[in-house]
């Protein structure tokens, strides 16, 4: 380890995760496809009336994005657990919270960032105006990383368990509530012509809280699960 700094290790982990994801591009696309499908089902199930669609758009698109990132979460530590990478990370000399932070960051770039780019386009399809779509983009950019951080705590605690998906939803969905409320309230406020600053600031505050505290909880969770 001589000559290597923490930054080198973190960067190596990040580029490894991104490279692995890039080599399995099809898998990385599935959250996006899921989001598109769910967002297509709502107009079919409710009605194609543009006014009604614009009214439900913030909630529908955000809930679809939230469920999509929940589905992607399952993959976060799974492969690493099977091939022993996770154990190596735990026994490595680098602080585990930093490594957890990097893992979450990589996971967000793979699953959250595409959602952030694609979901506002769906907003146009639901008849939202340009300014509101912009707010939707900002809300996703500030909100989805928080979801990844909170979700990672749940994944860390349940990584060794056999029944994954549904159970993870029970653990983390209640904790997703504030992000969903602030984000959709912000988009609705923008659609109605009100100021949206406070909503975005609150999303930013949640993100700051998540970045600074969640890595420690993730690290503690991993140590408990893998012992």
């Amino acid at each position, binding site marked *: 380890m001589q000559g290597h700094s923490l930054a080198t290790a973190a960067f190596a982990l990040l580029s490894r995760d991104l490279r692995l994801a890039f080599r399995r591009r099809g898998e990385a696309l599935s959250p996006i496809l899921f989001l598109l499908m769910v967002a297509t089902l709502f107009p079919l199930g409710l009605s194609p009336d543009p006014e009604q669609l614009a009214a439900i758009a913030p909630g529908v698109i955000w809930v679809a994005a939230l469920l999509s990132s929940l589905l992607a979460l399952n993959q976060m530590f799974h492969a690493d657990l099977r091939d022993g990478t996770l154990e190596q990370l735990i026994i490595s000399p680098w602080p585990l919270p930093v490594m957890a932070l990097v893992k979450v960051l990589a996971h967000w770039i793979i699953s959250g960032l595409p959602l952030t780019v694609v979901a506002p386009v769906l907003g146009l399809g639901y008849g939202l105006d340009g300014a509101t779509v912009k707010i939707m983009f900002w809300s996703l950019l500030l909100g989805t990383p928080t979801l990844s951080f*909170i979700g990672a*705590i*749940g994944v860390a*605690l*349940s990584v*060794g*368990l056999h*029944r994954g998906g549904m*159970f993870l939803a*029970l*653990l983390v*969905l*209640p*904790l997703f*509530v*504030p992000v969903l*409320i*602030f984000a959709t*309230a912000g988009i609705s406020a923008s659609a109605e012509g009100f100021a949206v600053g406070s909503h975005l600031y609150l999303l930013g505050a*949640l993100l700051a809280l998540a970045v600074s*505290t969640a890595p420690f*909880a993730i690290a*503690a*969770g991993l140590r*408990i*699960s893998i*012992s």
Partner: protein
Amino acid sequence: MNKLTLWFHKLGSPEYFYRFAGRWAPWAGWSFALLTVIGLYLGMFKAPPDYQQGESYRIIFIHVPSAWMSMFIYVAMSAAGFVGLVWRIKVAEIMAMASAPIGAAFTLVTLVTGAFWGKPMWGAYWVWDARLTSELILLFIYLGIIGLYQAIEDRRTAARAASLLALVGLVNIPIIHFSVEWWTTLHQGSTVNLMGESSMHPSMLWPLLIMAVATKLYYVMNVLQRARNMILELESNKSWAKTVLQPAEASR
């Protein structure tokens, strides 16, 4: 070491705790029963009907203490979980996990009695109001903690994982509460204020406070009893536990 610290250290021993809990659980249970009879009698028969809500307000003597307990037990569970995580004390882990089902039960009671109260008052069993929603989410968090504890095979790992989840929830519960407050609130504000003047007549306040103490005693009884069972299960291969379980066989 002074006496109190010594006693506290002793309490960390499962065997000592088992006997300690066995001594105190009946006391808590009987005083709970006595206070409940007094509190419910005063609340149901002695307190006057409310000038706006008539007789149906009387459900507060169950509803409000349960709501307090749903939050009180969560904090108690997180505190025990924290002690268990940091100092790896077996008894603290057990206390945290024994608290979770009781807290979930009180949360459920709060929601159900609230629904019965809501029907005559608001005309609906359920409304998407801030307090109702955060109480429902609290129930989900409780269920997540219990579920995680059940899902992990090794009991101590399970307790530590669920305790960590409880602590994460503890940070989130105030945030969830304030975020759901963003909807306009239908639920009436607090009328009981310990420090200042309560906006409640003493004839209604007293039964409520008695019931609040009674539910705490119920919790003490229930959590000690549950912890006793869990300790026996966890320590079932230790000699003291065998003596407790089969006194005749061990002495042979």
